[in-house]
């Protein structure tokens, strides 16, 4: 019953297997999801260097990551509005 769609999905796979570090990942449509991990990494490294005590690190890094994502979203909305208006 499920064999036909399964075989069809296998047939649509590329003949060559994915080779890590040599071939790119098929993430064309998910590129926006890759932004939050980047913001988290920036916040984590910055706060790790900046803070004297690492006790506050998770909270401070999370706060900074949220701020980065929020300001990026605000900038995106602002730029989108500019393109829509002008």
């Amino acid at each position, binding site marked *: 019953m499920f064999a036909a769609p399964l075989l069809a999905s296998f047939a649509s796979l590329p003949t060559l297997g994915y*080779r890590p570090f040599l*071939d790119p990942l098929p993430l064309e449509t998910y*590129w926006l999801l*890759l932004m939050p991990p*980047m913001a988290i*990494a*920036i916040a984590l*490294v910055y706060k790790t260097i900046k803070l004297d005590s*690492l006790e506050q690190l998770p909270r401070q890094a999370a706060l900074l990551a949220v701020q980065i994502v929020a300001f990026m979203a605000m900038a995106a909305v602002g730029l989108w509005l500019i393109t829509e208006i002008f």
Partner: protein
Amino acid sequence: MTSSEPPSEQAWRFDAALATWFMPGVGHMFLGESRRGAILGLTILILWIAGFLIGGVSVFDRTDHPLMFVCQVFFAPSAVADQALQRILKTGPGDPLPSGHPAYEPSFGRVNEQGVLYTALAGMLNLLAILDVIHRDPHRRRSDNPNVGTTLDLAARPAASGSGTDGSSGSGSGSGGGGGGVA
């Protein structure tokens, strides 16, 4: 009041900076900040590997995007990956190997952008770590080091804390265990 303190033990740590260039966080570990170094190393390494996986080896192409490569090269393995791409994999633009399989598949569009961005960001964050470790005073800012404020720390410290004429700097460094948490 800080001008009276002699800059005795704070030196330029080029060895730690060089170690950080090769492997993020190792320089901080040299200075005794293992936890800080581990967090830095893991974060930057994961970011770099993620970019490498997302875009493939073609994200390290100094002929394709030289300015981004300048950012990437602040993490030394990026230069190794670029050399592998230029000398081994890139026999020609898109030339296949004798086996018929392409040596690598170049990435395009958003995937390439994200891969380049991740690896370039890893390089820039590693530059931050290098700049931090190259002139980091191991006694002034640390409060997570178990030796700070203990007899081991005071014994290792030269006359800087003892000769502190002002009470604030002397007590600030001397009571590092208690004051360090506040600072």
